C-alpha cells in the first residue's frame, strides 16, 4: 500500500510507456518527465511568488496580496496573464537576435539541471554516473545567458547588471562546487541517486544525512549561501539593485520575455535548493526509519518547502551587500572554509563516523569558522577612505 503510493508516479509513467512502440519509449519518457517537472515546478513557482509576497509582507507587518482567489493565492495567475498580454518591446538599438535568444539560453540550462535531481525513490530522469557534474555544467552556462541579456540590450544599466551578475556568479561558483566535494568524497560517487541512497537510514533507525556531521553542517550553510548568490537573491541581489541600476541585466525585457527571466530565476532557486536537499538533507529519505511510510516524494518536497521558506525569510531580513563586501565574503571567507573542510572530511572518514569524529572534527570546524570570521570582520577599523579620482 505505502509502496504503491510511493511509486505511483513511476508506475504511471511505466504503464503509459508500455503502450508506446519500443523505439520511441526513451524519448517519450524524457518528454513526459520534462513536462511533469515543468508543470510541477511551474506551479510551485507561481505559488512561491505569492507565498513570498505574503510572507515578506507579514514580516513587515503588512497584509500582502489577498484579493485574487482564496487568501490571494491565485494572484500568480493574474500576474501571469498580465505579463503574457503585455507588449513585448525590443529596444531599437538592441542586438535583436541575441536579445531574443538570451531568455531561452537562461531557461534551458536551468531546466536541464532538473534532469539529474532525484525527486523520490526511482524518480530521476537521468541517473548519470556524473550527475553532479552535469548539474554544475548546466548551471555554469547560465552566466553566458546573463551576459547575452545584458550586452544585447545596449543599455548601460543592463551591462552593469550583467557584469555584476557574472562577477558574482563566478566568485560564488567556487564555494558552491567546493562545498559539495565533501559529500562526493564520503559517498564515493558523483551520481545524485547514489548520494541520496548513502544518506538513508540503512539498517539503523536514524538517517545519515550529511548535514548531521560537523563538516556537513558547515558545508550545507556554505552551499546555501552560495546558492543565494547564484540565484541573485537578497542579500546578494546587487545585479538587480533597483536603487542603482534599475533592474540589472533584464532591464530591457518586457512581457513574456521578462516572465521567462523571472521564471528562470525561481527555477534556478528551486533547483539549487533541491540539490541542497539531495546532497545534505538526505534527498527523499525519511529522517527516522519509522517515518518511512510517508511517500518519498513528499519528503523531498517538504524539505524543499523548508528551504524555500528559509530563502524567503532571509530575503525579508537582509539588506543588500556592497560589492567589496560581496567579494570579500566569497574569497576571504567561503573559499578558504570550503577548502579547509576537505581535509576535515578525510579526518572524519578516517576516525570513524561516530562520536569520536564529532569530538575531533566539531571543534576544528568551529575554530576555523571563528577564526575566518574574525579575519573577515573582526579587525575592521574605520579608516579615512582614499579615492583615486574624487579626492584632491
Amino acid at each position, binding site marked *: 500500500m505505502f509502496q504503491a503510493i510511493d511509486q505511483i508516479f513511476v508506475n504511471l509513467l511505466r504503464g503509459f510507456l508500455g503502450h508506446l512502440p519500443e523505439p520511441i519509449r526513451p524519448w517519450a519518457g524524457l518528454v513526459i518527465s520534462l513536462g511533469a517537472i515543468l508543470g510541477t515546478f511551474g506551479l510551485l513557482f507561481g505559488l512561491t511568488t505569492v507565498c513570498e509576497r505574503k510572507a515578506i509582507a507579514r514580516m513587515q507587518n503588512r497584509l500582502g496580496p489577498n484579493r485574487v482567489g482564496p487568501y490571494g493565492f491565485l494572484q500568480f495567475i493574474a500576474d501571469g496573464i498580465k505579463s503574457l498580454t503585455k507588449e513585448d518591446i525590443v529596444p531599437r538599438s538592441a542586438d535583436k537576435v541575441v536579445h531574443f535568444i538570451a531568455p531561452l539560453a537562461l531557461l534551458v540550462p536551468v531546466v536541464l539541471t532538473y534532469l539529474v535531481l532525484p525527486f523520490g525513490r526511482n524518480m530521476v530522469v537521468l541517473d548519470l554516473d556524473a550527475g553532479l557534474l552535469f548539474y554544475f*555544467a548546466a548551471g555554469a552556462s547560465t552566466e553566458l545567458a546573463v551576459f547575452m541579456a545584458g550586452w544585447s540590450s545596449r543599455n548601460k544599466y543592463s*551591462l552593469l547588471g550583467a557584469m555584476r551578475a557574472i562577477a558574482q556568479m563566478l566568485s560564488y561558483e567556487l564555494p558552491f562546487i567546493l562545498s559539495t566535494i565533501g559529500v562526493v568524497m564520503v559517498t564515493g560517487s558523483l551520481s545524485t541517486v547514489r548520494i541520496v541512497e548513502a544518506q538513508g537510514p540503512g539498517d539503523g533507525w536514524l538517517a545519515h544525512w550529511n548535514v548531521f556531521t560537523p563538516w556537513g553542517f558547515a558545508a550545507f550553510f556554505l552551499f546555501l549561501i552560495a546558492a543565494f548568490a547564484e540565484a541573485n537573491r537578497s542579500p546578494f541581489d546587487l545585479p538587480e539593485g533597483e536603487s542603482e541600476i534599475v533592474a540589472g541585466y533584464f532591464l530591457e525585457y518586457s512581457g513574456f520575455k521578462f516572465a521567462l527571466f523571472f521564471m528562470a530565476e525561481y527555477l534556478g532557486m528551486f533547483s539549487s535548493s533541491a540539490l541542497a536537499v539531495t546532497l545534505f538533507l538526505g534527498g527523499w529519505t525519511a529522517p527516522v526509519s519509522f517515518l518511512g511510510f510517508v511517500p518519498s516524494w513528499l519528503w523531498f518536497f517538504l524539505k524543499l518547502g523548508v528551504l524555500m521558506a528559509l530563502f524567503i525569510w532571509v530575503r525579508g531580513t537582509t539588506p543588500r551587500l556592497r560589492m567589496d563586501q560581496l567579494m570579500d565574503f566569497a574569497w576571504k571567507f567561503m573559499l578558504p572554509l570550503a577548502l579547509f573542510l576537505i581535509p576535515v572530511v578525510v579526518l572524519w572518514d578516517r576516525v570513524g563516523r561516530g562520536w569520536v569524529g564529532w569530538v575531533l572534527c566539531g571543534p576544528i570546524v568551529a575554530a576555523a569558522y571563528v577564526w575566518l570570521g574574525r579575519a573577515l570582520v573582526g579587525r575592521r577599523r574605520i579608516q579615512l577612505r582614499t579615492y583615486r579620482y574624487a579626492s584632491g
Partner: protein
Amino acid sequence: MSPMIYFLSGVTLASAVAAMTLRNPVHCALALVVTFTGLAGIYLGLGAQFLGLAQVVVYVGAVAILLLFVLLVTRSGEAGDGDRERDRVAERSWWGWLIALLVGAVLAVGAWSAGQLPQRAAPPELPGVRDIGEALMTDFAMPLQVVGLLLTAAMIGGAIIALREDRMRVAAEREGRR
C-alpha cells in the same frame, strides 16, 4: 546515435565558421560558445561523460566568459572602425595559415598512425568518472600536481602584474597631482 553525431558535427563546424567570419567580435565569441557546446555534445554522444561535462564547465562556463570580458574591457565591442585593422590582420594572415597547417599536419599524422597501431581489444566498458578519478589520483598524480602548480603560478603572476600596474598608475597620478 550516428545521425546525432552528424548533426552535432554540422552545428559545431558551422558555428566555428561563424566564429571566424562574423564581424562583431562578441558575436564571434558567442558562436565560439556554440562550437564548445557542440563539441561537448559529441563527447557525450561518444560516451565520454566526464570529458563532455568538463568541457561545458571549463569552456562554456569559464573560458567563454573570460573571452567576453576581455572583449568588453579592451575594446568598444563594436566593429565600427575595424577596416584598417582588418587590413593589418589580413597582411599577417599567413601566420595563421602556417599554424593551421602545422596543427592539421600533426592531427593527420596522429590519425594515420592510430590506424597503424596494433588493434587492442576495446575495453568491455567505457571508463567512468570513477576510473578517471582513480587514474588521476594514482598513476597521474604527479602530472596533475605539476599542472596545478603551473596554473596557480600563472594565476599569481597575472594578479601580480595587474597589481603592479595599478600601483604604478596610482603612484603616477599622485606625482602628477603634486
